[in-house]
């Protein structure tokens, strides 16, 4: 098991190196001149040139790259041009917001999609199955920003059930003490139920829009996988041995059917990392997605690079976790290491 993990970790290194190169190239190839932007509209050409020298942008690309990698190795992602703050600190403060949103959405999606998919497969052709089909079709056909806008329109503007889509907490409340960075957990840990309730209300709409989006592939994969497994020989054996329907469905069928679902879960999670950018923009969620969008608009290299790198590391970590979980569930994978 440990060997498997280490060998997978080794294969992750080239991906990280690739991402470092690509992020560097991408941001350098983006249109717009950061020096000109930074100097302001009224700046003279000399002033722009000075700033360019100061930022190191006058050097050749290889030189810039070496400097960039050197900084990276020291954990320095550079400073944001617009705020002047180190990118590392800014990402570190904003990442929990995104992580809380994404994980919460994922938990909601899994909590609905897996039971729905299992039921739809076990009771194939009944109303549950039809419901599953409707939900999955709706889920894939609605873009996530549209669901977000629609939810905000209906539940905030029309029904006024939800709070204004402006961030993680009611503006009159102060954030809970920073323990995990997750407001839901921190407020509970500090015993502040009012903050918890407010954070949950703020979180509901963006999380649901992301959950709807990720529900579809999960439910569909669960249903398909369950159907395939329920039709297989060993389920027939289990039934012929008189095992109870519960044992047959959960212990025998579901544990086998969950393997492709885990793979899908990894994919969905990475979709969600991307969808974050849109949802955070719609709901003014102070996460790293919104941060990256703003940086991109102002040709602020460092935060964009930081964002892409963070995402890449998250993605690689995620895939490692998936591999690990897969190995836990399926003994055949364990053997291959």
């Amino acid at each position, binding site marked *: 098991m440990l060997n498997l993990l280490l060998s997978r970790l080794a294969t992750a290194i080239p991906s990280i190196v690739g991402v470092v190169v690509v992020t560097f190239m991408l941001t350098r190839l983006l249109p717009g001149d950061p020096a000109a932007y930074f100097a302001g509209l009224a700046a003279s050409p000399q002033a722009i040139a000075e700033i360019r020298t100061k930022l190191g942008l006058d050097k050749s690309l290889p030189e810039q790259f070496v400097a960039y990698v050197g900084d990276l190795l020291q954990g320095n992602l550079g400073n944001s041009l617009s705020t002047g703050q180190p990118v590392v600190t800014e990402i570190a403060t904003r990442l929990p917001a995104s992580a809380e949103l994404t994980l919460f959405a994922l938990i909601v999606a899994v909590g609905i999609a897996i039971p729905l998919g299992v039921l739809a497969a076990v009771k194939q052709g009944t109303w549950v199955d039809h419901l599953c089909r409707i939900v999955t079709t709706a889920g894939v056909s609605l873009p996530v920003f549209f669901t977000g806008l629609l939810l905000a329109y209906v539940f905030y503007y029309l029904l006024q059930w939800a709070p204004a889509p402006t961030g993680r907490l009611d503006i009159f409340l102060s954030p809970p003490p920073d323990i995990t960075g997750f407001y839901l957990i921190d407020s509970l840990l500090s015993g502040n139920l009012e903050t918890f309730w407010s954070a949950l209300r703020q979180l509901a709409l963006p999380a649901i829009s992301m959950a709807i989006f990720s529900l579809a592939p999960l439910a569909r994969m669960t249903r398909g996988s369950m159907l395939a497994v329920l039709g297989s*020989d060993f389920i027939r054996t289990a039934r012929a*041995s*008189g*095992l*109870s329907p519960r044992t047959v469905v959960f212990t025998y069928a579901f544990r*086998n059917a969950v393997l492709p679902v885990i793979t899908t879960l990894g994919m969905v999670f990475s979709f969600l990392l991307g969808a974050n950018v849109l949802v955070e923009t719609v709901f003014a969620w102070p996460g790293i997605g919104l941060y990256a969008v703003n940086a991109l608009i102002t040709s602020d290299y460092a935060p964009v690079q930081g964002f892409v790198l963070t995402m890449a590391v998250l993605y690689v970590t995620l895939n490692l976790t998936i591999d690990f979980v897969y190995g836990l569930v399926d003994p055949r994978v364990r*053997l291959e290491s």
Partner: protein
Amino acid sequence: MTAIPALAVEDLSVEFRTRSGVVKVLEHVGFSVDKGETVALVGESGSGKSVTAFAVMGILDAAGKVTSGRAMFGGSDLLALSERDLAEQRGRELSMIFQNPRTALNPIRRVGRQIADVLVRHGGATRNDAPQAAIAMLKKVRIPDPERRAEAYPFELSGGMCQRIMIAIALACRPALLIADEPTTGLDVTTQAVIMDLIGELAGESGMATIFITHDLALAAEYCDRIVVMHAGHIVEAAPGRALFDHARHPYSAKLLAATPGETVSLEALASIPGGLPDLRRPDLPPCRYSGRCERRTEACDQPLPQRIVGDHHVVACWNPL
């Protein structure tokens, strides 16, 4: 032969609903297996052998429907039992072994656990004793090093080993009836013999009735007391193994025998049976479903099939038997 049937199937008919119409897969199938007796169901692929077994076990596909018949077993009609009551019987009183032992076992569950599951379900062992009881079963089906093998997954074992595990699962609760559906298909010839001997021996020990489904007449003759020949969902002939080999009365049985390689027949003399199974979706199926392939067909064959007793325990469904 003792006259206590362990299982008596009477007038069993099964239909399958498919997109291209209703298929009458079984029609008026009847046979019985006595306690301690081994009966072979023989026929080519698609003749309804497995469907008969699945219907008796109550594990037909959702598309399959039993339209008539009884399967008397231990005083109750298996076909009339609720799914819940039937599940109580399955694995405890009547068990089944399938072909392709590799796919018939749960790929991600240790084989010892799979045997233990059945034991625990039917009260054969408590949750705590089950692992030991499972190892005892592995010993019984002569798996070397049972303690270690109990911890193995099916993919770590050979096909023959997996089939032994299947047998251990099926026999864990000492059932009164075992249905073995082509248990040796996909195993090499030496393993085949070992598995058949093992089933025979364990059945003999406990006085268990066995239904052995196969398309291999030679194997059937070697291990079974009686042979029931099926063709296109009908039973065409039922006879003691010797009697069938000496003098098959149904034209199909005779052709099947001629198509079986034996010690006396050279490979050149092997005959194939002309024609194929009739399309069972046809609404105008003739009473004798073999008549389309039969050389002895006469006008009498258009009447409903007879059940002629032509010898001791020897019945043939044919107007012009050999």
